[in-house]
């Protein structure tokens, strides 16, 4: 399959060079090991915030590095979590002595590599706290699985923790807020086609023209269920039903934040059509969409699909969401 690459092996490194070249006032790209940090890090007296994961999900995470959000991001190869070295080096580069919160999506590889890094840092007196994001209701959370995957809520955790760190919250407070976002977020995605992995030049899975994968992840894993294709409103309703059913009913009231992310090839037209129905559905359930974010912020290469996230807001979360942020992909108030 044709793509805009030079060669499969250089996709990540060339893209990172491109990002660094086009955001010199914001970002610094480090090599061996690879990470991307705020130019102004470490920021004295502030908790640092580091995340990372496999590449192929852009703008996450590198696009969220900057004032009000991440201090650094560690991009792995496509769909491959970063190495422990990358995480360790990034934290050492941005930690200002106030400790570092690690935002980790719940995938075996990510969890293990961040954990190894945290062990190495702890041995050296660098404090870290880990916020584990596991919001995907498509996956059963039981002792017989690796637990839920981390998807859309990751972006929300990074925004909220970034704002908390910027205003001077302590390591424990920033981590606590991140966990609060996790506890109040649920997500679900569906896809009409898989993404095209650079290394193979092929889609991770093939779907007939009348079928979709419901409950997909962002790494080309097939979803939990293969279903017949339906008009998008029906798919959104189905996703919303699964998301809402998973919340404790006592929590799911009042104001919510709706996050709709395209998974790669969904056009802005399609994202808006999905957002329309999602807002209507939440409204029908008596929930007010007080904040929203719609666009392709967490992707899976060129997958055609969307992922929906609902975060139940409270006053503090609204304040932190609204706080200024200045990153390549998300910017307001600055």
């Amino acid at each position, binding site marked *: 399959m044709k793509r805009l690459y030079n060669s499969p092996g250089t996709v990540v490194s060339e893209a990172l060079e491109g990002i660094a070249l086009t955001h010199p006032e914001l970002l610094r790209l480090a090599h061996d*090991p690879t990470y991307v940090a705020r130019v102004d890090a470490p920021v004295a007296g502030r908790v640092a915030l580091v995340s990372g994961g496999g590449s192929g999900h852009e703008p996450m995470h590198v696009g969220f590095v900057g004032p009000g959000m991440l201090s650094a991001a560690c991009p792995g190869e496509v769909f*491959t979590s970063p*190495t*422990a070295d990358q995480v360790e080096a990034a934290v050492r580069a941005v930690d200002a002595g106030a400790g570092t919160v690690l935002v980790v999506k719940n995938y075996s590889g990510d969890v293990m590599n961040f954990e190894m890094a945290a062990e190495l840092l702890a041995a050296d007196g660098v404090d870290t706290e880990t916020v584990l994001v596991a919001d995907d209701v498509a996956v059963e959370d039981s002792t017989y*699985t690796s637990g839920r995957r981390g998807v859309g809520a990751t972006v929300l955790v990074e925004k909220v923790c970034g704002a908390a760190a910027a205003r001077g919250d302590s390591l424990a407070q920033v981590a606590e807020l991140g966990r609060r976002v996790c506890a109040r977020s649920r997500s679900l995605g569906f896809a009409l086609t898989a993404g095209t992995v650079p290394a193979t030049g092929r889609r991770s899975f093939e779907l007939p023209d009348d079928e979709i994968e419901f409950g997909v992840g962002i790494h080309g894993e097939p979803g939990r269920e293969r279903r017949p294709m339906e008009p998008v409103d029906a798919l959104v309703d189905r996703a919303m039903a699964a998301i809402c059913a998973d919340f404790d009913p006592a929590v799911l009231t009042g104001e919510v934040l709706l996050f709709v992310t395209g998974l790669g090839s969904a056009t802005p037209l399609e994202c808006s059509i999905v957002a329309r129905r999602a807002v209507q559905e939440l409204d029908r359930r008596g929930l007010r969409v007080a904040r929203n974010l719609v666009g392709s912020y967490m992707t899976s290469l060129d997958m055609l699909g969307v992922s929906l996230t609902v975060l139940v807001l409270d006053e503090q979360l609204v304040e932190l969401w609204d706080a200024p942020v200045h990153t390549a992909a998300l910017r307001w108030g600055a």
Partner: protein
Amino acid sequence: MAERLSATDVAAVFHGFAQAVERDRDLLTELDTAVGDGDHGTNLDRGMRAATEALDAAPPDTPGAVFNLVGRRLVSTVGGASGALYGTAFLRAAKAAGAASTLDAAGFAAVVRDATTGIAERGKCAAGDKTMYDVWTAASAAADAAVADGLPAVLSAASTAAGGAEQEMVPWQARRGRASYLGERSQGHRDPGAVSSRLLFDCFAAWAAT
């Protein structure tokens, strides 16, 4: 047949493993595409290239130092679950091998035992979860049982047990790693990490057979 593994021997086995991974890279990636994210072959190939380059650049002089160097290179270059797991396994193996200049049957069995424990701790996995750990436990148990018969017997028993376990797991449902997201749809698929682990034990056995 050699009753002891020297540093050069262990390095030779890792060179063999690197070749096997390069040869079977597409198979490993194919298996990972079916149940995971399609990178296991690329991941391990990248890591083992880096590891063998490091071994060639500065050949270590104890088996423990070989395991240590390979473990470190994998931790630095692989990422993903397998980078952390193989990395941890070999770093633990290095500790178990200590400063000894060679490994005999009992030494090798102890190395595999500690590496296996490292995988369990790092992966928070148990027997039956359908991961590489099932291959390592099977190999470790077989190695322990064969210690009295000498090193070649240990290596051959480990390889046979690894192959048997890898096959036996196929119908199981995965409970750790990406394949677990598939639930019942993971049944009937070979686990990529189990297949690569099996390749490693085959390489040790192949060394003994030459």
